[in-house]
């Protein structure tokens, strides 16, 4: 279940739950004049907390490392395609609003939005 490096520009190491050493894929693009931070779950290559469980703590660490303002970014979690036979490992992108309640925090992006966001 290796994640293709096409999903990220760099591996970002972060402190997960209880400071567990954790890793995710990271891409930062500009979208509509705003920095768009795309974090990708690395599954077997992430020794610690998942990007979704780490949530805002991960976003804060990325912002601190990259000099970004959490309130001024578009934050997206990517569930990468791992070419698994299981549908649970298909590609999905979710925009995250950390200020929303749990039922409204995640919005799945459609194909057009993903293409626009990830276009180099």
């Amino acid at each position, binding site marked *: 279940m290796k994640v293709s490096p096409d999903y990220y520009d760099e591996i970002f190491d972060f402190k997960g739950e*209880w400071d567990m050493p954790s890793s995710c894929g990271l891409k930062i693009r500009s979208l509509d004049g705003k920095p768009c931070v795309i974090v990708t779950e690395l599954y077997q290559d992430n020794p610690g*907390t998942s990007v979704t469980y780490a949530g805002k703590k991960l976003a804060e660490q990325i912002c601190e490392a990259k000099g970004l303002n959490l309130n001024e970014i578009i934050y997206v979690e990517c569930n990468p395609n791992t070419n698994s036979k299981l549908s649970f490992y298909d590609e999905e992108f979710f925009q995250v609003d950390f200020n929303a309640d749990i039922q409204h925090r995640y919005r799945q992006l459609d194909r057009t939005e993903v293409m626009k966001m990830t276009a180099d």
Partner: protein
Amino acid sequence: MNTFKLKLIYPKWQKLRGQTTFNLPPHGPVAFAATLPEWVDVSFTDENVEPIDFDEECDGVALSMMLSTQVKRGWEIADEYHKRGKLVAAGGISTMLHAEEMVNHVDSVFLGEAEGRSEQMMIDWVNGDLKKIYNYMGNMPPIESVGPCRRDLYKRELYNHKGVQMVDLFHASRGCRFSCYPCAVSYLGGRKFRPRPIDKVVEDMAAIDNNRLFIVDNSLAQNKEWEKELFTAIAPLKKKWISHTIEDDPEVLDLAAKAGAWYVYQAVYDTSDYIKERVKRYHDYGIGVEGTILLGLDNQTEDDIKRLIDFLGEIDLDLAEFTVMTPFPHTKGYDDLLRQGRIFDFDWNHYNAGQVVFQPKHMSPERLQELYDYAWKSFYASESQEQKMFRLFCNVALREMEEGTYRPRDRRLANKSFGRDVDRSVRNVNL
């Protein structure tokens, strides 16, 4: 160092309705107890088989919890001890999964594996300096440091059903290199398979006063060479054992059978010929199969689930265990369902894998619950779970008789089941 009297408790949980309850001696508490220094005098209570004596004299209390359905009871127990002025620490799998909440209910939370670490916690406790968190997550001790469990703490007569001793739980490895959708083991024990040294496994296993074991490792099928070495080494012990999946390889299966494989838990996730043949191959080597069937995954429609239940009748399973998809924290299942806003119940008492706590993709939660109930009833319609268990028990007893290791059941406990009297009265049935 003066003796510190530690009350170690394994909280009870609500068993699934309609299923035969077998209380096995829990592994976590005695694995933890084995890591404690000699000056800690441990008194162990498994609340599933005996009540807690809250007034038993002790210097401190430790909760060992494995299941999500234990954590709220653990918090109640902590409250009781707080009323008595006692400090309470918590550890174990579900403490790690629910740590963020656990810190609000107990005085100290121990995260990670305890070998080589618990002594410092106890020294702090004695010195009145117990820390709120002992965090060893992701920092595994050397696997060689894992020693034999403190099985002397068990009250053996409480893990006995009508004179038959329950299996002892045993672990030959930790960690898991797989990242399965509903499982948190890779988060808890690391994504690296960590086998124990074979000589330690043999020594530990040989010392257990029980001929029947459950090797609780997540999956033995993680390193074929180690697996072969393990089975070869334990064969002379003539133990009989249950385990999770074994490598699908004729040589490994043959060695497993010779090493005493009694029956295995095998996931049945579709109706393919592969599954049918996989079950048959186990049987060809005299190894029984308990199918584990997870219902409510996103790729299952109602028809798929019904087909899967019908399929079980065709593959000659010895036992079947049905569960509904449950989004335990720190699993991919949790992340996915959380993102999709589909988890509607966060009451951990309901996270027993028999109660639907999320919105399934292809049906209502109520319909999935019905199908789950139907699956149990359907599979055990012609022969009850206890009867099927008895059949497996007879298989192993015969093998033990052939090998001269059979121990007759303890007649003194023939009228007891897990410490309680067995009701053998014949009831009138109104026809």
